[in-house]
């Protein structure tokens, strides 16, 4: 089929042929064609098979909504053929076909339809046995479900996001939107005008009138620097406070508009009659788009059903394009196209008062029935009414009502910085639209405090002519589709009502009407009318189901954009890598797990443990949280936050910190080093410091103490030098800190200069060995590290990683918050009575700890050990249960092989009554084996604490 001559085809460039394929066959179109137009130009009208019945389907709206036009690209399922441009080499295939589009092996489903009433799946597929659904029916149905095929090997694509800001966002670049945008920009507003089409103009680009008007408007718009035009941009939803996603290609513009004006127009509504879904039956706008945008002649002989003036315009367009007009059918008694009617009459066209009651044809319409007559045609054009594009206003809280006079949905806006204009507001005649749009712009300008002018209203002489109600010709044989996406017929809705599903939402859920890709855009009006009739209510009472974002389909990629999991590096990141560390994620940080090749992990970790126990090791603890608490009330503040007492802590001493929440649950621990009367340096665990810091600020927002808290986690780095030979290392450092046994006692803190670096040194550690922790500003960390490594070399000091650290701490019985504690662990359950001040009047968890103590302990953390050799399956793993009378009363929180003790050692919660040393508890291994083991203390190694106090 050849194309219509210019000026038909304002979107295509006939000089640039484009070759693509559909269903394996090569086709040629022109640059500017969409898939559906290029195929239609070649006489290929069928595009897909329907969801349930596998009926042949083609384009209906040419506006990108219905499931029927969804096609498959190699890596892209569910692509709208009536909006997606063709490109050289594009490979397109049909969806939801078994075999080929032309010979779909599932086409029998259409005949089977009578056996599959609405909701049938709720009443069937249950037998013959209980498992039949799961084993037999469900797999069968799953195979038939779905439309497109996702490409599991789809190549990566880049998606971008940006923020946009404007005074006024105008959505829709038709006559109303363009006019309003110009009006506002001329008054000085910063305006964005967004439209989903490649060129502005909306219906002016394909309608019978308006080309001159459009040219003038485009010139005006182009001259306004404060009017940003974004074409091919879908405004895909409205979110709180005028936050709107604008999607263009692979980019998401998150737009904050002080004012929004919606001029998205109307969506043409199909008519309901038997076989109304046949290819060749389309809406008036679709026929016009095919001709004016793509120079495609939509058929040879047509019947037009026109219930409004636009239908007469379409009929005249078709005649002009050389399509034979078999008849114009106007359902309105005494219906008239006004002046156009006489224009049409002059062409000798037959005008019939009536409705199209049925269509026939195998894969394309061949005739439609009007009254008792079958009229032969290969094209049936439907122009019977509109519904406003209610989605965006409804996202914003607008209410959709039904106006009985115009037989049309109408919108009532919420109290928000939002307006509507043009077809969306129910204004149709061009001059009236212009005045309405100017007035809407003025309302926005007024709210923006920009200059305003008076607009003279213009009466709309077309509004009452747009819709005509009773175009629902239900048929006893069915196939009178209300919702093509979901293959829903009139009787399906009626039957749902009979079952008791009388509320629209229930009908939607029971029948799935409106749930397909077009989200009710073409079915809501007819659904409301059918349901209203079936339930004896008004259309207004039925309404539409809640409109939810997005407006149209949007890809997960465009929503996701780039994914950036947070990443933080300690000052020694490179150094550890240079030393061969296996770096593992710890929250956003990476920490050395051990040093050396992965294959030797087990041996290397044991060596690292032995190095600490027998010589000296060094651990980078820079990810530990660091907080400075300072001010006259710093001691009082810590007293309230932590469980011990800090006001009388001497300057130059360190003290353990245990933090509980108001429920008395242990949430963090660390050490407070008092550097001065009004300055404490407090550590917190790596994972908790951000929350601890926020909590501290939160409490003080209420307490208003004279204290300042600063998070210095990144600012300070730290290394723990630990092992019997640790003192040999630190005393060999240059500096003014006395590291001698006499000068630096256990839990002392000293500040000074070491190797030219300002250092905060503490005699604390996690290993149970003689330990010095040196903290310094992070920019000095490498200098200090190098100095320590240098003096450590002669005594064989070895860097060790996180895994050795975990073993060392467990041997010493130190708990790890978050691993050995959970959301309800109280200090008493840890046996940490010693860490609770008995003299302080208050700390955050105090009241709850006491309340819980009075209840008695239901569980307590104890030590357990298992002598079986390493790797023995009869050793419980982490999280294995502790049973009492076969009821779980606790679990193992930590268990590791101790290279020092040659045994498995563990911490575990046991029942409160069994927590005394020597009590025997039952532990259930992963393999189900139950072991009876005696309870011991937390500390497996050096219980007398001799080594750390060396």
């Amino acid at each position: 089929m050849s194309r219509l001559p210019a000026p038909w085809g304002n979107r295509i460039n006939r000089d640039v042929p484009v070759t693509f394929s559909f269903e394996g066959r090569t086709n040629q179109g022109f640059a500017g064609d969409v898939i559906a137009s290029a195929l239609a130009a070649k006489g290929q009208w069928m595009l897909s098979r329907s969801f349930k019945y596998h009926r042949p389907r083609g384009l209906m709206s040419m506006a990108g909504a219905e499931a029927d036009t969804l096609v498959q690209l190699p890596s892209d399922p569910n692509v709208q053929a009536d909006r997606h441009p063709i490109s050289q080499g594009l490979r397109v295939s049909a969806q939801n076909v078994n075999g080929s589009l032309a010979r779909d092996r599932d086409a029998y489903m259409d005949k089977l339809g009578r056996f599959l009433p609405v909701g049938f799946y709720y009443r069937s597929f249950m037998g013959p046995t209980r498992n039949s659904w799961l084993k037999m029916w469900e797999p069968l149905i799953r195979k038939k479900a779905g439309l497109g095929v996702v490409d599991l090997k789809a190549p990566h694509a880049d998606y971008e996001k940006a923020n946009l800001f404007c005074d006024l966002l105008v959505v829709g670049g038709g006559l109303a939107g363009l006019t309003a945008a110009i009006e506002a920009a001329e008054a000085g507003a910063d305006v964005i005008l967004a439209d989903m089409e490649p060129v502005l103009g909306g219906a002016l680009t394909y309608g019978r009138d308006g080309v001159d008007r459009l040219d003038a408007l485009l010139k005006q718009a182009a001259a306004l620097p404060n009017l940003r035009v974004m074409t091919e941009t879908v405004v895909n939803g409205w979110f709180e406070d005028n936050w709107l996603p604008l999607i263009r290609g692979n980019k998401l513009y998150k737009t904050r508009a002080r004012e929004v004006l919606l001029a998205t127009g109307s969506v043409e509504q199909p008519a309901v009659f038997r076989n109304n879904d046949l290819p060749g039956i389309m809406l008036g706008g679709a026929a016009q788009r095919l001709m004016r945008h793509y120079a495609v002649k939509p058929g040879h002989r047509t019947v037009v059903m026109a219930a409004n003036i636009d239908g007469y315009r379409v009929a005249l367009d078709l005649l002009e394009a050389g399509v034979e007009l078999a008849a114009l059918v106007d359902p309105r008694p005494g219906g008239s196209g006004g002046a156009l009617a006489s224009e049409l009459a002059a062409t000798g066209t037959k005008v019939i008062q009536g409705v199209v009651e049925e269509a026939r044809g195998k894969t394309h319409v061949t005739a439609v029935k009007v009254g008792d007559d079958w009229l032969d045609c290969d094209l049936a054009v439907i122009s019977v009414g509109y519904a406003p594009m209610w989605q965006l206003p409804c996202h914003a809280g607008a209410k959709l009502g039904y106006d009985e006079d115009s037989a049309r949905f109408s919108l009532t806006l919420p109290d928000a910085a939002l307006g509507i204009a043009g077809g969306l507001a129910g204004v149709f005649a061009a001059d009236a639209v212009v005045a309405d749009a100017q007035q809407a712009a003025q309302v926005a300008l007024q709210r923006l405090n920009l200059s305003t002018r008076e607009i003279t209203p213009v009466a709309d002489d077309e509004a009452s002519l747009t819709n005509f109600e009773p175009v629902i010709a239900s048929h006893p044989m069915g196939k009178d589709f209300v919702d093509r996406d979901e293959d829903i017929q009139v009787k399906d809705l009626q039957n749902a009502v009979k079952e008791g599903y009388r509320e629209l939402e229930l009908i939607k859920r029971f029948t799935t009407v409106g749930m397909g890709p077009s989200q009710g855009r073409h079915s809501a009006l007819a659904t409301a009318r059918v349901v209203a009739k079936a339930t004896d209510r008004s259309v207004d009472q039925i309404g539409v189901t809640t409109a939810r974002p997005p407006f149209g389909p949007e890809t997960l990629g465009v929503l996701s954009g780039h994914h950036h999991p947070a990443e933080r590096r300690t000052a020694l990141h490179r150094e550890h890598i240079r030393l061969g560390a296996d770096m593992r994620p710890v929250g956003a940080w990476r920490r050395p797990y051990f040093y050396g090749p992965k294959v030797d992990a087990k041996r290397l970790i044991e060596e690292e443990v032995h190095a600490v126990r027998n010589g000296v090791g060094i651990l980078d603890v820079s990810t530990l949280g660091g907080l400075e608490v300072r001010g006259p009330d710093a001691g009082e503040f810590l007293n309230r936050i932590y469980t011990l007492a800090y006001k009388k802590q001497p300057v130059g001493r360190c003290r353990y910190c245990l933090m509980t929440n108001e429920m008395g649950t242990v949430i963090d621990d660390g050490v407070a080093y008092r550097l001065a009367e009004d300055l404490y340096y407090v550590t917190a665990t790596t994972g908790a410091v951000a929350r601890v810091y926020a909590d501290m600020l939160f409490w003080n927002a209420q307490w208003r103490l004279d204290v300042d808290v600063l998070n210095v986690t990144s600012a300070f780095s730290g290394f723990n030098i630990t092992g019997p030979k640790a003192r040999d290392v630190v005393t060999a450092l240059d500096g003014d800190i006395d590291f001698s046994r006499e000068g630096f006692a256990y839990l002392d803190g000293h500040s000074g200069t070491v190797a030219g670096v300002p250092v905060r040194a503490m005699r604390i550690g996690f290993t149970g060995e003689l330990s010095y922790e040196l903290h310094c500003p992070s920019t000095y960390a490498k200098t200090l590290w190098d100095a320590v490594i240098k003096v450590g070399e002669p005594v064989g000091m070895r860097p060790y990683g996180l895994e050795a650290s975990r073993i060392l701490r467990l041997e010493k019985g130190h708990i790890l918050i978050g691993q050995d504690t959970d959301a309800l662990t109280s200090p008493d359950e840890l046996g940490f009575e010693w860490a609770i001040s008995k003299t302080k009047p208050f700390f955050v968890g105090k009241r709850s700890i006491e309340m819980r103590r009075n209840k008695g302990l239901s569980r307590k953390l104890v030590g357990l050990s298992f002598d079986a050799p390493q790797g023995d399956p009869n050793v419980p793993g982490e999280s294995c249960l502790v049973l009492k009378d076969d009821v779980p009363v606790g679990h193992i929180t930590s268990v590791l092989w101790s290279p020092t003790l040659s045994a498995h050692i563990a911490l575990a919660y046991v029942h409160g009554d069994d927590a005394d040393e020597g009590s025997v508890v039952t532990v259930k291994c992963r393999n189900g084996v139950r072991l009876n083991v005696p309870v011991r203390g937390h500390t497996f190694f050096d219980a007398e604490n001799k080594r750390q106090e060396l």
Partner: protein
Amino acid sequence: MRIYPLDPQGAAEGTPLVTGDVTLRDFSHTSRFGLKGRGSVAFLQSQGISVPGVNETATGVLRLGSEEVVVLDGPTELRASWEAAQAPKGYYAWREETWAMMHLSGERLFDLMAKICPVDLSVSAFAVGRIAQTRVGYVEAITWRNDRDGIGFDLLFDIAATAFFADAVATASAEFNREVTP
């Protein structure tokens, strides 16, 4: 010797900083004397430093809160004067250590900022002298207009996120070689 993340042997060593339509430069070495807590403002004023309003900057002084100030490239003796002063004088805020300092500029600067920062930093919306404490490039950051040589933004953010931030800027600016924005 102090080593900042992008220095040789620093944590972010070898991380490329984009140049071209968008240019990212590192100023982490420059001095930034920060005070926080009661007495901070009064102390600085006693040193003859004029302290602007909250979230404003003037002559290299950033006011980040009612009692939180950073002095950029201030007099070298400032810290010594502060050490010697009587409380209340605020508390030392370790700003050379907590934060990296970087600068963004280039022809596509505003397009980039629109991508990586949720605050409207356009010329008409964000005047010179204002400070935004917000999120830039997926990290908490402080930013303000500082036209070092042509229009640009200075940024302060978690020093441990230096490599991450540079990567995020590189990813976000890659687009400008391919397509045009409105």
